[in-house]
């Protein structure tokens, strides 16, 4: 597969995913619980299936956040290697 085809296909696929996600955002409703803590303590295990509620939050409710957290680490590593090495050593 040529690089040009990838350069066309990847932004196209990202655009489709973005539109799909924008359609799926739920409408705002009146909250049933006093706080987010009550909601997660009562419903957390039934909704996610994780006994560790921290894990339930960062891998299910706020997975979006974790993905960018992993991305930040990737960019950090790239920055450190970029500053420490000359261009010829690293792709």
């Amino acid at each position, binding site marked *: 597969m040529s690089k040009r085809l990838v350069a066309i296909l990847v932004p196209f696929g990202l655009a489709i995913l973005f539109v799909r996600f924008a359609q799926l955002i739920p409408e705002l409703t009146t909250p049933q619980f006093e706080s987010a803590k009550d909601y997660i303590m009562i419903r957390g295990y039934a909704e996610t299936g994780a006994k560790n509620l921290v894990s339930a939050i960062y891998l299910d409710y706020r*997975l979006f956040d974790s993905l960018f957290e992993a991305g930040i680490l990737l960019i950090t590593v790239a920055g450190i290697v970029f500053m420490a090495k000359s261009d010829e050593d690293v792709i």
Partner: protein
Amino acid sequence: MKQSILVVTISRIMLPFVFLYGFYIILHGDLSPGGGFQGGAILSTGFLLTYFIDDERRVDLNRLLRREKLFFLAILLTGALSVITRGEPFTNFLSPEFPAETRRIFFLLLNVLISLKVALGLTAIVETFLEEGQG
């Protein structure tokens, strides 16, 4: 670097336990405190111990970074898979009708992927600093 026989011996004894503890933290991420990020950091500490044992040892930095990128793409795809299976973005790709033991597959998969990515990233940082120190 000056090698000490005490550091080498203790590092050789500690190495398997460090890796065992790291994998324990990762695989029990959804049951007990811990998870992918923490377990990955412990695994990269294990790499630092191998440097104490043999300071001539080198890993290829390009290969580390390429694999880290691949694991990051795999994490993104695993997170986005729920759009296809359930119609909701960024959640478990198994629907809530399954029992909790089956839905644990998602947590295990994501924890293992995140931990491998974090371990490779921190290993790349440590390796960069080591090569800098050697001049």
